[in-house]
């Protein structure tokens, strides 16, 4: 059973990125549960977790959101590579936060970045995922926590 603190650490890692990098806080939307693989947006940053918990945590965001985020960061390169970089950085921050808080119990991978609507995210069958919408300006991304 996932603890509230664990979920909070992942969520804070994500919202923190927006707050610090774009100087504009993100809010979390209404969280819910889902079985099977949730739909993802164009860009997805994944970290794998093993140890006390097993599974994946990923941040998936639509291109439009990333574009605005890059603009807020005074970036003027909106290439595919830059988008991937950005999602990677968000995942990096989530991973860093998790290491700080659960470094003792978790083994946390270096993030990998996937793009496209149907990426292969290795998900354990029968695990319910927590879907936490991340709302920022008018856009919405998703943080997906899928751990046993």
């Amino acid at each position, binding site marked *: 059973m996932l603890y509230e603190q664990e979920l909070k650490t992942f969520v804070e890692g994500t919202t923190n990125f927006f707050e610090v990098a774009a100087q504009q806080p993100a809010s979390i939307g209404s969280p819910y549960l889902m079985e099977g693989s949730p739909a993802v947006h164009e860009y997805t940053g994944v970290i794998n977790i093993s140890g006390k918990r097993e599974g994946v945590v990923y941040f998936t965001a639509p291109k439009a959101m990333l574009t605005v985020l890059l603009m807020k960061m005074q970036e003027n390169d909106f290439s595919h590579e830059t988008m991937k970089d950005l999602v990677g950085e968000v995942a990096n921050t989530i991973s*860093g936060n998790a*290491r700080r808080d659960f*470094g003792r119990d978790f083994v946390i991978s270096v993030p990998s970045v996937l793009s496209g609507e149907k990426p292969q995210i290795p998900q354990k069958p029968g695990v319910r995922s927590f879907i936490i919408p991340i709302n920022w300006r008018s856009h919405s991304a998703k943080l997906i926590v899928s751990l046993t």
Partner: protein
Amino acid sequence: MRNGKAVAKNGGKRTLKLMIVDDSNIMRRRIERSQRFEQLELVGTAGNGLEALELFKKTDPDVVTMDITMPQMDGIECIARLVAMKPAVRILVVSALADKATAVEAMERGANGFLNKPFTDRQLNEAIAELMR
């Protein structure tokens, strides 16, 4: 790898040469944009440890910002190599890896400061100021 302009002299004051090492383009550019120090002159950016070593040999920077998680050669290894080449180099670790063991390891290899990702411009400027004190 992109080499920066030649080192400029700044009102007689010695300009310190800065190299940015990060595998993310965004982060590299963010650091580039944020370094508003008159004494700092960007001499180049590298996307991994190996590139960093080569660029270091060519440009001989005084100040380096260093990511930890990078392909080919990671930041920890790279710090050790850079310090071996130039003991006086000042290295700021810029990383999302917030665990203590990594921090101690980097310091032990010769890093001089830390900045956790993500960071604000102010945090970056303060970290660089602290580094050059």
